[in-house]
C-alpha cells in the first residue's frame, strides 16, 4: 500500500512539474531512475533520497533564490527507455542538469545524449569502472566502483577474518563477475587462496547444489556478490545447509529488508557498503532522522545515493551563480560536498572520491560498523 502511495506521489510530482513549466520560476533537475521492473525497489529509494534533499533545500530558500523542482522519469534500467527519458527531459522540460540512470548499461547510453546537448549528467549509482574512462566532458559519478571497494577492504577483510582460503559466489552478470574478479585478485595478492568460483543466474532460487560444492571446498570464508532478492535467499540457505563459514560480500546487504527476509541467518555476516545508517557523526544522524520520518524506514545505500547526488548538483548550481548547464558543469568540477558519509570531490574525469566506505557486520539485526575508510583519489 505504501509503495502504491509512493507511486501516486511520483505521478503527482511529474504532474506538478509539467504544470510548473509555464511558471519559468523553478530550477529544474531531471531524474532518470527505474520506477518499474526488477530494480524498481532500489530506484524508488534513490528518488526518496533525492526528494528529501530538494525539500530541505527549498525549505531553506532554494538555490539562487529560486525553488528547485525535480522532473522524474522512468528509465526502467533499460538503455532505450533511459535515452528517451533523457531526450524528453532536455528537449521538453528544459532541465538544466540530469541525474541517473541507475544501471551502468542505461547510464552509458544516456551519456552521449548529455554530451550532445551539453547538459551535465551525474550518476549516484552506476558502478561499472569504465564509465569515467570514455572521455566524456559532462559526466560525473558520485558512487563507489567495485575496484575501489575491493582495494579498500581486501586487506581489512583478510586480517580481520584471518582468511586462508576463500570461495567466491556471484550473480551471473557484469557486476557480479566484476566483483568476484576484483576481490579474488586483490585477496590472492595478499596470499589468500581461491578454492571455488561459481556464478548463478538472476532469479535463481535453489542454491543447494552450489552449497554442496562450497561445503566440499572447505573454504574459510565465502565472498558473495548479490543484490537483495537473490542474496537473501542464498544467505538463508547457507544456514539451512548447516554451513557456518564466515560470509562477506558486496551488494545492498546492510538494509532492513535484507535482514527482515533472512531473519537469524543474517547474523554475523559482513558487508562492504558505501553507506550504512549506523555510521557515526552528527550529519548522518540528522539525515537518518529526516529520511526515516519521511519514508518510515532507515536509509540504505540507494536512499543515501539519491540524497548525496541531488545535494552535489544543487550545490554546483548555487556555486555556478546561474542555472546554465555549462556553468553548472564547471562548478561540479569544484565540488567539495560534506555528505553524511564523508566529503565528496571529483577527479578531472568526473570520478568521485574522498567519501567514506564502510565494512559492517550484522549483529542483533542491525548493521554495525566494523571498519570505516576514506576512498583515496584514484
Amino acid at each position: 500500500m505504501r509503495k502504491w502511495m509512493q507511486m501516486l506521489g511520483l505521478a503527482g510530482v511529474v504532474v506538478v512539474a509539467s504544470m510548473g513549466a509555464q511558471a519559468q520560476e523553478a530550477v529544474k533537475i531531471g531524474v532518470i531512475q527505474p520506477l518499474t521492473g526488477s530494480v524498481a525497489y532500489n530506484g524508488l529509494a534513490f528518488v526518496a533520497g533525492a526528494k528529501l534533499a530538494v525539500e530541505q533545500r527549498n525549505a531553506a530558500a532554494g538555490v539562487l533564490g529560486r525553488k528547485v523542482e525535480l522532473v522524474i522519469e522512468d528509465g526502467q534500467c533499460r538503455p532505450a527507455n533511459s535515452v528517451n527519458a533523457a531526450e524528453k527531459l532536455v528537449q521538453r522540460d528544459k532541465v538544466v542538469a540530469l541525474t541517473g540512470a541507475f544501471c551502468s548499461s542505461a547510464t552509458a547510453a544516456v551519456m552521449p545524449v548529455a554530451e550532445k546537448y551539453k547538459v551535465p549528467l551525474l550518476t549516484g549509482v552506476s558502478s561499472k569502472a569504465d564509465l569515467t574512462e570514455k572521455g566524456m566532458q559532462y559526466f560525473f559519478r558520485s558512487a563507489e566502483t567495485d575496484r575501489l571497494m575491493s582495494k579498500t577492504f581486501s586487506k581489512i577483510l583478510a586480517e580481520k577474518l584471518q582468511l586462508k582460503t576463500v570461495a567466491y559466489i556471484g550473480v551471473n552478470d557484469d557486476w557480479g563477475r566484476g566483483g568476484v574478479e576484483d576481490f579474488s585478485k586483490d585477496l590472492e595478492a595478499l596470499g589468500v587462496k581461491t578454492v571455488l568460483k561459481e556464478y548463478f543466474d538472476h532469479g535463481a532460487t535453489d542454491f543447494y547444489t552450489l552449497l554442496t560444492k562450497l561445503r566440499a571446498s572447505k573454504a574459510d570464508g565465502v565472498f558473495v556478490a548479490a543484490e537483495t532478492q537473490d542474496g537473501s535467499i542464498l544467505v538463508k540457505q547457507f544456514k539451512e545447509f548447516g554451513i557456518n563459514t564466515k560470509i562477506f560480500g558486496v551488494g545492498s546487504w546492510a538494509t532492513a529488508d535484507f535482514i527482515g527476509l533472512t531473519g537469524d541467518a543474517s547474523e554475523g555476516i559482513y558487508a562492504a557498503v558505501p553507506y550504512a545508517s549506523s555510521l557515526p557523526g552528527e550529519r548522518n544522524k540528522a539525515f537518518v532522522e529526516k529520511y526515516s520520518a519521511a519514508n518510515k524506514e532507515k536509509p540504505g545505500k540507494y536512499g543515501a545515493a539519491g540524497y548525496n547526488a541531488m545535494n552535489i548538483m544543487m550545490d554546483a548550481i548555487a556555486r555556478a551563480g546561474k542555472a546554465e548547464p555549462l556553468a553548472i558543469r564547471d562548478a561540479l568540477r569544484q565540488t567539495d560536498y560534506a555528505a553524511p558519509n564523508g566529503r565528496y570531490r571529483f577527479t578531472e574525469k568526473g570520478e568521485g572520491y574522498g567519501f567514506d566506505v564502510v565494512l559492517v557486520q550484522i549483529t542483533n539485526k542491525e548493521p554495525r560498523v566494523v571498519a570505516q575508510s576514506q576512498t583515496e583519489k584514484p
Partner: protein
Amino acid sequence: MELLPQYLANGLVTGSFYALSALGLTLILGLMRVVNFAHGELYMLGGVMGWWATTRLGLDFFTGLLLVAVVMAAFGWLVDRLLIERIRDQGEEPGILLTIGLSIFLANTALLVVGTAPLKVEAPLSAGPVFFGDIVLTKLRLFAMGVCAVLIFAAWLLIHKTRLGRAMRATFQDPMAAQLAGVRTANVYAATFAMGTVIASMAGMLLGSIYSAQVSIGGLVSMKAFVVVILGGMGSFAGAICGGLLLGVVEALWGGYVATGSVDIIGFALVILTLVFRPYGLFSKRAERA
C-alpha cells in the same frame, strides 16, 4: 564422487517442486488445449497472497493455504467464464494472446500493489538442517515434498475417480457428445481452469515459504514449467512427475560437475532433444491425450 548422493537429493527435491509447479500448466494444456502463459503469474499470486495471509492477516500456514486455494479457485473460475469463454473454439492463437495479456496485467498489478521487494511467507516448520548420513536436507523441504505428493495425488484422484473428473474427461474428448449426455460443459471448463489455478497458486505459496515470494518471478516459473511439460508430454500426470524429477536431477548434476552459472542451458537442451526425437514427450501415450 562422495558428493553424488547430495547432488541427487538436491535434484530430487527441486525436481518434485518443478513437477508441482508444472502440474497446473500441463492439466490446462492437456484437457482444455489452452496454452496458459499466465501460469507463472498465477503461481506468483499464490505466493503474494500467502505472504499477505501469513504476515498481514496473521493466519497460520495451513489456514492461509486454504484461503489462497478458495480465493484462487474463484479467480480461476471467473477468468474462464469472463475471458477464456469468449475465445473458446477459435483456435490456439487467441488463447495465447489472451493469456500473455493476462500475465502482463497480473504482474504489473501486483507490482503496483505490493511493490518489488521479496516477500516472506511464514513457514509451518523450522528450516534447520536434517542429516541422513552425509546428506543434508531440511524438515521444511521434506515436508514440502510430502505436500507436493499429496497435491499431485489429490489432483489425480479428482480427475480419475470423481464424477466431475469423468465430466472433464468426457467434455475434452467430445464437447458435443458430453453436452448431449447432460454435462454442463461451461461449468466443466471453468472448473478445470479453476483447478489449474489452485494448483499453481498452492505451489506458489508452498515454495514461497521455502524461498521467498517475488512479484517478478512469473516468467521464470512459466519457462521451467514449459520445459517440464514438453519433457513429460502434455496432460500426463506421470509425465509431469518424471519430467520434473528428470529436470531437477540433471540440473543438479550439471551444476555439481560442470558449472552452476550455466545450469539453465540444460533444461532447454533437453527440450530441443525431446522435440527432435520424441515430439510428444517422453511419457505420453497418444491415445491417452484427449
